[in-house]
């Protein structure tokens, strides 16, 4: 790549990523502002005061919430990776009657609006006596048509020679799945993992509906608790909450990014 090309690309990179990141930066700035400053629509705070942050932490058991969020998100992530990769494997490497139909049935679950399932599911959870438990927060999300779909798309690109070589080596189906398919699909697994973790982390309504106290509540509820309805919202505090809540996820994305880069195993057939 020539130098002018490089400069041009860097220019585009910087410009567009700044645009994309701008809202986050904006929230970051606001989190340091006082009420009047915000209302006056400033971009830079006069002084960087941590008052809003101290308020956030004093108002909520935020560390607790963060921990809960982490436990729940990590469990859902692992659960999804297992359940989805198993299903995707079956859809790609096993031949059976009705495969396409079942796959489409899976896909169709994505099209069902969650509103249609929410209320019956709340009752199901209550009947299982899973209110205020981690399993209530996690198990319903283990099966994910999206994840199955994502992994299936990736599995389809695995060269068939690898499957053949493993069959000849006498690998059982599970071993092939475990030792070849999964490692080769690291990119997609990391993507799905990040997706699962983040969506769970960002979930609001479900955790709210099936928890009635703080024991297992997650951080998004905390975020909502910072905003008021009729009483004027303290935006500085809310934005501070937003920043506190997104920092772990951004961190995760950054780490995931590294993993992705490392895990990229380019095909080395012939």
């Amino acid at each position, binding site marked *: 790549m020539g130098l002018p090309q490089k400069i041009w690309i860097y220019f585009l990179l910087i410009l567009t990523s700044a645009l994309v990141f701008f809202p986050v930066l904006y929230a970051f700035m606001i989190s340091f502002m006082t009420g009047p400053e915000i209302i*006056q629509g400033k971009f830079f705070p006069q002084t960087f005061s941590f008052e809003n942050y101290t308020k956030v932490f004093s108002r909520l058991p935020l560390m607790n919430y963060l921990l809960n969020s982490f436990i729940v998100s990590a469990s859902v992530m692992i659960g999804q990776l297992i359940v989805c990769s198993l299903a995707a494997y079956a859809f790609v490497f096993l031949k059976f009657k009705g495969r396409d139909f079942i796959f489409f049935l899976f896909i169709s679950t994505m099209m069902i609006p969650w509103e249609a399932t929410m209320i019956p599911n709340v009752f199901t959870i209550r009947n299982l006596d899973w209110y205020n438990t981690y399993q209530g927060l996690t198990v319903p999300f283990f099966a994910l048509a999206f994840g199955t779909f994502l992994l299936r798309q990736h599995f389809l690109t695995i060269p068939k020679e690898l499957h053949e070589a493993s069959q000849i080596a006498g690998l059982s189906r599970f071993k092939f799945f475990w030792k070849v398919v999964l490692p080769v699909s690291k990119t997609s697994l990391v993507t799905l993992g990040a997706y699962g973790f983040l969506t769970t982390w960002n979930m609001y309504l479900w955790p709210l509906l099936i928890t009635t*106290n703080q024991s297992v509540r997650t951080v998004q509820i905390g975020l909502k608790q910072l905003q008021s309805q009729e009483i004027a919202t303290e935006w500085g505090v809310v934005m501070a909450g937003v920043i506190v809540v997104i920092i772990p996820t951004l961190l995760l994305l950054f780490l995931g990014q590294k993993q992705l880069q490392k895990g990229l195993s380019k095909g080395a057939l012939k």
Partner: protein
Amino acid sequence: TNSDSKESSTPSTDGNKGGTTNDGEKVSIEFWHAMSGTGQESIDKLVKGFNESQDNYEVKAEYQGSYEESLTKLRGVGGTKDAPAITQVFEVGTKYMIDSGYIEPMQSFIDKDNYDLSQLEENILNYYKVDGELYSMPFNSSTPVMIYNKDAFKAAGLDPEKAPGTFSEVIAAAEKLTTGDMKGFSMLTYGWFFEQLVATQGGLYVNEDNGRSGDATEALFNGPEGLNVFNFLNDMNEAGTFGNFGTVWDDIRSAFSTEKVAMYMDSSAGVAAAINNSPFEVGVAYIPYADEVQRNGVVIGGASLWMSKGIAEEEQEAAWEFMKYMATPEVQAQWHLDTGYFAINPAAYDEENVKEKWAEFPQFKVTVDQLQDTVPGLATQGALISVFPESRQQIVTALEELYQGNDPQEVLDKAAEGTNRAMEIANKTKK
């Protein structure tokens, strides 16, 4: 329906759930509320105060999301042992709660305990009384007020100490106040304000005495009073003196603080923030009324506390004690100062800390005066219908269409029609 099945099942795994604690000494109950932000902060403080004030009961305040969300959750456990002893429900849920069969009317405890209701604000109680019986304990109450920019008044040559009172006065003032970026008047696109402007003219929202003598079947808000309101807004909108800042509380507030609008209608709970955030002098006034009628006053808004039925007796006992505590002047004074909601116990206004605050911000007094000046009656008692949220939505749509230049009567009628259908279905399906 599934209360039977739930009756036998034990409360869920972790011990925080309502019910007596193991040693049987302290009765622990749950209090579900929908107060976030500063409201929650204050509630936690008050609850802590209660728990420390005695040894028999322990209240756990748990946030359950917005009013709608917490009501949805209540429907999951209502009428069973899992239900919280106390739930905070917004005012428009009143009818629903009464009909639901989940709750124990307040009145039974008041009678048993010979509790003196007269110490509480009458105009607030009125809302929650049906057929003379009090169903829930008022808690966080607010009314609408008109907030205005005194500096802008001065600049426009208006008297900053005398806010316009009638619709036509407001229209005229708005005309003068509108300059460049600043609009004269605004109102949050929210059904509640419409209800208030209808009620202050003495107009009813629905038939059957505003739903208080039976299940309402027909909307009345598209009558002359309602039309007055719509015309009032329409006039200003067409004259370009009305600013539309949407459905979000904070948007309209920031518009005011940044001098995009000179007068607007807000909740009494928003007064403090308006004063704090605005770099100019802020005035508070009564809401306007139509020229041809007498001012009736305002309807109470906010939420109240409901006691569950079907839970252990000592839990109800605990709940009652807590509610009484919450109604004491000291607590109410604190609540009023923290949040800007009314004190349901007017004695609170005599507390030192309140007086101090009022001295500093005389605007607060206006809100209380407006409430106390209210003429009791069917109109200001407020309507009682179970489909209120839906009806409010119809009004929002009507307002939005009005601002788009549609005919006032037409859009109102459409809203009324929608409300009628909702009421019809609700009545049909009622058990």
